[in-house]
């Protein structure tokens, strides 16, 4: 009887175990969460892959304000009323690598976009199922975006680590790549993008032509390429690229200064809209336009005003001073505050898109490229005058030598491109004028005296901690 009992136990246990092993393996395999899509499905589908790319534009559209505010405060464009640690150190040129700002400048966001771009390039390459035209457009845009962000990284930090894959085991130990080699990658990507991208602007379908100048096309790639050649002193090529845009009938300088930043203005080469649920037209408009005295305290938006340096740099009668700079007057006490007013709207409906690239810059690149090559200075003066005339100014009347012209062009860049993507700050660095300017500006802002090392941002200390192959910039 006892033996029988044991048999029963064994039988029961065996049945149990058998049942268990039949069920368990499958039991612990879970489907992906209903709220997420596996990567393989994303890149097997035209629309889903497009969403992955659009996700980058949606995420990066506020960067225009960050970049222009930070660079504007660092240089001589803006004055700050904020005591926020996200803003104040820029104004005093007192960036600290390990300050409590989690990331300094564009670092974290730029590399996040670059990761996403790399994932898209790899996903398209490794997954079948998309139509070739869509693959081509998306790859082109991805390469363009990679170049775009490396451009801002290399200008902000100098040598930067060059991540061109999603493999974190490689990327986490990257060293800083020489600035020239980063530019090489930028130019390679842009050239490749130029061949891949559509001639026209396309819409969300990746193929149908759109009026909106949102999705980069060949011209957009050319515009950034012109800038990259200018910054790498490859003036002949910069001249060619900018010329191609000036000759392109799709783009014209908009004569009314108040209409330059409107949706699909003819001057637009590339614009990004705010996403559909936004409560204002552009982040720039919402953050720069003042309706009362600038906020003090910990705020970041509506705290930056036009500095006296910029205000005083305009020539008399410059219409840009009237139309692109707004003012608010407070009573008790009486005070006037000037603010960037290129974007006119701080609310709905959406009338403006954030300007990423526009034709006026191409005129100035073209002019400067000619001067730098010391050829056809008349033509360069013409380019310059096109911008000046629109601003209501007389034609350039200075001597027609390259030094004088160059000074005039750089000054025109200051007054034309202020608070747009940090042009002034990057021009000061590029031209080597930075020490001369900042030695005057820094003390007047309340800084502790200018140090030429501060032309580069510090690499965030948290990054050096995690990737110890990174070396900090001098001066930090």
């Amino acid at each position, binding site marked *: 009887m006892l033996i029988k009992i044991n048999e*029963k*136990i064994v039988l029961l*246990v065996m049945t*149990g175990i058998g049942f268990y092993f039949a069920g*368990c*393996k499958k*039991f*612990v*395999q*879970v489907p992906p*969460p*209903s*709220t*997420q*899509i*596996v*990567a393989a499905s*994303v890149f097997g589908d035209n629309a*889903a892959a497009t*969403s*992955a790319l659009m*996700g*980058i*534009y*949606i*995420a990066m559209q506020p960067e225009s304000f960050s970049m222009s505010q930070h660079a504007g405060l660092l240089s001589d464009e803006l004055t700050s009323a904020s*005591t926020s640690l996200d803003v104040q150190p820029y104004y005093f040129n*007192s960036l*600290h690598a*390990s*300050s409590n700002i989690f990331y300094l400048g564009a*670092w974290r966001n730029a*590399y*996040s976009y670059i*990761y996403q771009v790399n994932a898209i390039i790899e996903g398209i390459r490794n997954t079948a199922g998309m139509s070739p035209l869509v693959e081509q457009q998306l790859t082109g845009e991805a390469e363009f975006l990679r170049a775009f962000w490396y451009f801002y990284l290399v200008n902000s930090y100098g040598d930067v680590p060059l*991540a061109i894959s999603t493999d*974190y085991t490689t*990327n*986490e130990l*990257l060293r800083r790549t020489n600035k020239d080699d980063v530019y090489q990658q930028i130019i390679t990507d842009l050239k490749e993008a130029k061949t891949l991208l559509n001639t026209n602007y396309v819409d969300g379908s990746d193929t149908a032509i*759109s009026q*909106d100048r*949102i999705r980069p096309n060949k011209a957009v790639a050319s515009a950034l390429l012109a800038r990259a050649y200018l910054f790498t002193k490859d003036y002949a090529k910069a001249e060619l690229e900018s010329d191609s845009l000036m000759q392109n009938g799709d783009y014209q300088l908009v004569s009314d200064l108040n209409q330059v930043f409107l949706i699909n203005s003819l001057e637009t080469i590339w614009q990004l*809209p705010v*996403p*559909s*649920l*936004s*409560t204002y037209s552009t982040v720039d408009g919402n953050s720069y336009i003042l309706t*009362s005295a600038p906020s*003090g*305290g910990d705020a970041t938006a509506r705290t930056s005003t036009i500095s006296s340096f910029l205000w005083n740099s305009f020539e008399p009668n410059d219409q840009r001073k009237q139309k692109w700079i707004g003012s608010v007057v407070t009573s*008790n*006490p009486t005070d006037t505050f000037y603010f960037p007013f290129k974007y006119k709207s701080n609310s709905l409906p959406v009338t403006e898109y954030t300007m990423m690239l526009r034709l006026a810059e191409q005129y100035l690149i073209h002019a400067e490229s000619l001067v730098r090559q010391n050829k056809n200075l008349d033509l360069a003066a013409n380019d310059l005058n096109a911008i000046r005339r629109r601003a209501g100014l007389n034609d350039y009347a200075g001597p027609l030598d390259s030094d004088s012209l160059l000074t005039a062009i750089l000054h025109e860049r200051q007054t034309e491109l202020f608070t747009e993507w940090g042009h002034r700050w990057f021009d000061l660095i590029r031209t080597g004028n930075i020490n001369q300017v900042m030695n005057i500006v820094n003390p007047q802002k309340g800084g502790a005296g200018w140090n030429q090392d501060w032309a580069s941002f510090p690499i965030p200390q*948290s*990054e050096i*901690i*995690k*990737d*110890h192959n990174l070396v900090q910039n001098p001066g930090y």
Partner: protein
Amino acid sequence: MDLQVRCVTKTLRIMRLTAIILLAGSVTVSAHTYSQISLSAKDAPLTKVFKEIQQQTGYDFLFSADLVEHAGTVTLQLTNVSLQRALEECLKGKNLAYEIQEKTIVIKKSDALSAETKNNLPPPIDVHGRITNESNEPLEGVNITVKGSKSGTVTDVDGAFTLRNVDGNATIIISFVGYEQQYIRIANHTALVIKLRQGAESLKDVVVSKGYYDSKQEYNTGNVYKVEGKDLQKQPVTDPLLALEGRVPGLSIQQVSGVPGAYSVIRLRGQNAIQFGKPITANDPLYIVDGTPFSSQSLTNEFVGGGIFNAPKANSGPGYLLGAGQGMSPFNSLNPADIESIEILKDADATAIYGSRGANGVILITTKKGRKGQNKLDVNVYTGTSKVTRYLKLLNTQQYLEMEREAFNNDGLGFLLDPQYAEYFPSLLFWDTTRYTDWQKELMDRSNNFSNAQINFSGGNNNVQFFVGGGYSRQGALFPGNYADRKISTHAALTAASPNTRLHMSLSINYTNDFSNMPGASPTNSITLPPDAPPLYDSHGNLNWAPYGGTATWTNPLSGTYAHANAVSEYYAENLNVRYTLFKGLDIGGNAGYSTQRLDQQNLAPSASAPPPLNTNPMYRTSTFSENSSKTWNLEPQLSYSRTVGKGTLDLLIGSTFLQTVRDSKAELGNGYASDVLITNIQAASVVRIMGVSNAEYRYNGLYGNIRYNWDGKYILNFTGRRDGSSRFGPNRQFGNFGAFGAAWLFSKEKWITNLLPFLSTGKLRASYGVTGNDQIGDYQFMSTYSPNTTAGGIQNVTGLQPTLMPNPYFEWERVRKLEEGVEIGLFKDAVFFTVSHYRNRTDNQLVGYQLPQLTGFGVVEANFPALIQNTGWEFTLHTRNITTKDFSWTSDFNLSISRDKLISFPGIENTPYFYLLRVGQSQSSQLLFKYIGVDPQTGEYKFQTKNESGSPSAPDDWYPTKPLTPLYFAGLGNSLHFKQFQIDFWIQCVNQSGYTNTPFFGAPGASEINQPQEVMERWQKPGDVKNVQRFSITNSTSAFNNFVLSDGVITNASYIRLKNISVSYSLPTTVLSKIHFISARLYVQCQNLFTITKYPGLDPESQGLNLPPLRTITGGLQFSL
């Protein structure tokens, strides 16, 4: 002979062998098992009746066939009587007697038993009695033995017993698990009413649950600590875990905020896993409530946060103690009054049966169940108040202004003190500098109400027992306005057994509804406002914003109370346990449970809470709505078998677990409401967006087995094995094997030792070793997925997708190897009971949220690392019965925990980011900081030890590891005094630890408009000054200050001794009770956190920072039973 009789005879033969073996050894009267028997027989042979009793009780019979066959037949009708009674009835007038030896009933001729007693004088008497507890409730199953004899009995359901034929001068011994043993001389009394006193029983008799099986503490090979519900219920808290503070060796609890419902950090024997970058639950123990896992993860929505309770987020950096968000505590959903006991399972022996989830220990929470006996109604009501007990000494207006002005002048920025800059520096130039407000008094010095009411009804008979109860509690928040945490809970438990006791079922149901209405931000965080800050209200009684040119010059601290964080938490759980005895020794059964945790949140920011000019912008009116839930079911079939083998008992257990948890959350944001009154309805918003939707499924499957062998109560072996699979791991890495081995030797049962040490009542050595795992990581970390990013909307009618995380399909289990040795000593009948345990937990294959530089695109990826972390510690407990007399008793409990953790090795750490977070040979909680050496008397700036000559420290060269910030020693001392109707319990908690000073929470003195502690006035002012606080500065000395915050200058001693709990109660005497027909009645006063002794300079050494510290609560109440 019919079939049944043959069966009995066969059993007889088997039992005879066993009986001979048993008789050869020690024979003890069974103390544990007794059964209720119902018999109905008409002229039935005794063998048939015996067979019936055998089936109903599981007891075997041993008798000579001749003797019984000649005894004739019996006729009887019995319902629910004790075994003894049944046997007596059967054998009445048959000249037969019985004797119970272990689980065998020996039938003999009656003269054989009474031979000795016949010669004794005076003549034996029959004694009847009734045994109750202190609340006059009958106790069933109490063991009564006659001293110096083998006869004895147990009480029935009404607590009644009968002893027949005992010597009138004999002494009877009354013993019952959980009660003090009593010796009573019969002294020829034939009717006795005996009241047993609870609590002072020997610890070794306590039965502890090890989850899938129970063990008497005496025979336990592992480390399980049990806290009785009644000790929790002496403490006025709404979160049951807070009632464990200081009570359990090895369990460290840090209350990070005094806001009701806030999260606490719970660590059992330290941190086994590298914490950085992991979910905050990564080092949490596994919680099981009535057999179903209870998620310790806060449900507070990760996308929108929880107002005053931050959003739960992973620890991402070295300063994690300062900033990690926590969210609301899920434990606030448990009602402390419904808890019967909490068991804390620590070592491998106890936790390996939980396999991959047992790495950080297991905490089993068991809710109350009905008991056999008189039905009774219990009512318990208390009310009281809470207050902050410690304040900081902050600067007054004069000192504050002096500091600010000095800072401007030191930096050569004195020109900024011109009135034209009034809007930038309002505290100096705009506000009324003659004002003085003590913001701590204004914002913190308040008291709130705390009330609690519980009612329950319980009882039952032999087959069915029930418990139904309900509770209500309301704990006000310390803020201006009607803020409170209100909790309503119900609990029901039903236990049923078939008449033959082969089928047992028990069901428990818990439901809690908690409504937490808290401000959007804590006004107490504003105690650092400049002392000349404007009044809270303007002349019209509205919030005062002191506007300058239409713009607020300050954040009114009450603005947070105009915003609301409303949260409704619901917890529903049910658990069914079934056990069926297939045949003697073999039980089949299992456990099935289901629980739902839900949290519905509303965070409302009306324009009334916004400063001008924002308050005129309808877009500012914002409300977020979130729904969060976690649903779990588990199914755990189990088979157990028990039999005697040799001189011991062998227990076998095999079972399986299937578990699924689905978590969902959704958060929406609406803004642009036309009016503040509309913001509770998202339909009235002009813009609505989905802030986030998440869904996660976790599945878990395990097969476990356990073999226990207890040889003669002296040598005990325990093997546990488990094979587990978890859905959190990638394909082919889901399964892992875990197991443990435990052994114990009760050396006090060895004759030669008791001869040598007669005062030794308990002596046990035990040891265990085993492997458990940890899967406390996020779900789907191995999968490469994209998530929609619709918060902002789309572009060109296309919504965005973003990669969810950095995928890694290759990570696998983290393993903890646990070694434990322990000694348990009881002296003088266990009046002194002392235990020591030593443990060593080693965790390798560390599954870390591996920190990546942002340049990889993500800050973190889940991966295994060969790092080895060791947690070692000593735990001591001492329980003494100091005095036990009829009117006065005094018992003490003491526990001490010493814990150390160390990163033993981390091959290749220098090639990982952890090189900058951890040091080999140091504690995980050691901070890597600069060495502060004082203020430079020349420059007035903080100075640090540096390797190079520059004088400015640089990471990592000048870093050195500080003391660990986790407690190094913690202890608890409890005393329980009983004098007649009075009872006093108090508990003192001691913690030895390091923590952060005030500096990191206040920022640089003078640099911004933040008030400072008085100590900053001892600052450097001129060359030659030797001070500990650097020069006041707006910007110039920022860098030195930033380095100071990253130095050991901000680490200080945060040890404390706290009178955690004191409870005084008065019970009405029995004479009064019987008049008013109460079973019991008690008046009491209970206090929590009564006072704290510490040198810590901040608000509170436990919470640190500027959070609302743990509060002092004083309550008074009444409890009675009918």
